[in-house]
């Protein structure tokens, strides 16, 4: 099992290196002078800055040499300098990363828990009212653009039900300390996390419903019922555990999508995370920041995949004991 995971990590490292090479290729494939691209803000950089960039990245040397320089810089954690924010890209990203991770993890947990619960309930009565609701909800949740869902929630909670703040991560007018601050952040987190969760809740309810229906048909469920176990034990202990395996797979696969969805949600709710940073960098054509975020998001997706893989082995004894 340990060697398996080590192989996975080595594989992930290679993929990350490929992302760095991709970033390098993008800088050179983009229309215009690579120095301009690295400087960002097309046309806004002074000659002095451009010359400095040419020297820093050895832009007059052969391509392979440049690539080596670029990879070397990335390995040192240097993704360049954002001229718009006047800050190193790595620093910018690390500042914004926690907010996004909080948002994504909150949305993911909400989506998995609520989605699986709905799916399990509806699987027990495949032709019941709840089942129709879940089917409709999953279709609607999938079809509504996430930024629009966010705006609809803002419209609803701004005046009709003013329970939750609709913008930002904390109360700026009355800054809080300690536990009160954490509560304040959680309070602000409700709407963005709910918005992001709705899309995926729909998918998880659908997935867990299908896999639960399959699991409830299995022979071991008949055996469990024949043993005289209570319905609750049969459903939640015997069937659910087996039905969860596809759900776990999905969590790993969807982390990247969730992350991209966060870009839109953060923009709608003014959540100060990486997504908001992406939006600002797009507006300013701040290429180094954009490419840095692309790298970091790939890194996060890869970490999530490895974590899923480990979770998978812990949940499923067939995989755990194979070798």
């Amino acid at each position, binding site marked *: 099992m340990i060697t398996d995971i080590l192989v996975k990590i080595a594989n992930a490292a290679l*993929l990350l290196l*490929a*992302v760095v090479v*991709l970033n390098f290729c*993008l800088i050179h*494939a*983009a*229309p215009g002078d690579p120095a301009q*691209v690295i400087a960002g803000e097309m046309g806004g950089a002074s000659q002095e800055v451009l010359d400095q960039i040419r020297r820093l990245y050895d832009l007059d040397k052969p391509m392979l040499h440049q690539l080596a320089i670029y990879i070397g810089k990335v390995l040192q954690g240097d993704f360049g300098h954002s001229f718009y924010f006047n800050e190193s890209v790595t620093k910018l990203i690390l500042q914004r990363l926690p907010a996004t991770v909080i948002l994504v993890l909150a949305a993911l947990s909400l989506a998995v828990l609520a989605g699986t619960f709905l799916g399990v309930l509806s699987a027990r009565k495949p032709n019941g009212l709840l089942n129709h609701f879940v089917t409709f909800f999953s*279709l*609607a949740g*999938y*079809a*509504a*653009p*996430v*930024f*629009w869902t966010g*705006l*609809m929630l*803002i*419209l609803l909670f*701004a*005046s009709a039900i003013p329970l939750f703040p609709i913008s930002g991560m904390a109360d700026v007018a009355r800054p809080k300390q300690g536990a009160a601050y954490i509560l304040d952040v959680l309070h602000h987190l409700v709407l963005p996390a709910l918005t992001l969760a709705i899309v995926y809740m729909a998918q998880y309810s659908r997935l867990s419903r299908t896999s639960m229906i399959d699991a409830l048909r299995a022979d071991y469920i008949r055996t469990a019922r024949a043993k005289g176990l209570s319905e609750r034990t049969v459903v939640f202990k015997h069937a659910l555990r087996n039905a969860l395996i596809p759900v776990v797979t999905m969590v790993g*696969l969807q982390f*990247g*999508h969730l*992350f*991209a*969805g966060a*870009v*839109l949600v953060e*923009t*709608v709710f003014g959540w100060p995370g990486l997504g908001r940073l*992406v*939006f600002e*960098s*797009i*507006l300013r*054509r701040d*290429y180094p920041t*954009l*490419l840095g*975020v*692309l790298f970091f*998001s*790939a890194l996060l*997706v*890869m970490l999530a*995949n490895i974590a899923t893989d480990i979770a998978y082995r812990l949940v499923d004894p067939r995989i755990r004991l194979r070798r």
Partner: protein
Amino acid sequence: MNTAPPVPPALTPANETVAIVRISPLRETFRLFVQNPTGMIGACLFGMILLLTLFGPTLYEIDPFDIAGAPFTSPDAEYWFGTDYLGRDILAGILVGGRATLTVGAVAAIITLAIGIAMGSLSGFFGGMLDTTLMKITEFFQVLPTLLFAMVLVTLFGASLQTITLAIGVVSWTGVARLTRAEFLRIRELDYVKAATAAGAGSSYTILRVILPNALPPIIVAAAFAIGISILFEGGMSFLGLGDPNVMSWGMMIGQNRNYALDAWWVVVMPGAAIFLAVLSISLIGDGINDALNPRLRKR
């Protein structure tokens, strides 16, 4: 000596009491699809949206970029969907904007399918080193968050309908590739493929004429969802201001008006509802096809 062996009477053409009707799988699927209420609701809804975007702008002759009235006119008899922050007619925007959004969705889905099917069929059919290489490439693309990658591409290469469409297609083919590969791996081992090979069929004939038609049904379902996702991506990018500024689109309408949503709900509700209904109708169609293809549901 040359006489043919006697044919049992039941099989002679003269005895036509039992006729074997060959139904092509696609026609059978279509028949079942038409009987499926979900799919038909989706098809009707989508048909309506298509007609409105095709003929709407000719019937409702207001330029979506023109200032048609006072800003934030609420929906009334003259402006059915109201006007936006500049006083532009929202209904006109939705009718014209649908063209860009739906075209990008359809073309991006075609690109997605073309890349996905090519990668999946080659790696599933040939296996070996080619499979390993192509799957590594697929894995690489799966690691990059799709929408974010598309945004980076469009920012770098300039926001036009072409780059947006290409970018969406280039980032979203991995699912189709995996699906196609799985189908090819399964079908490759079936007897009729072996028979075709034994009869001397070459690789390209086997891939295109023998395996691909049989692998198509699940790919068609994936295609429906690919169109939906492309529309959502286009919406998301134009919402962030990454759309073509000279072309009206639903996402752009929401993006430009979003700061005024609290004062005038219709400026964001209307175009968003258009995206919602378009994607909903397409996924209903996808669901309908999926049900029609599912042999377990067929026997009901």
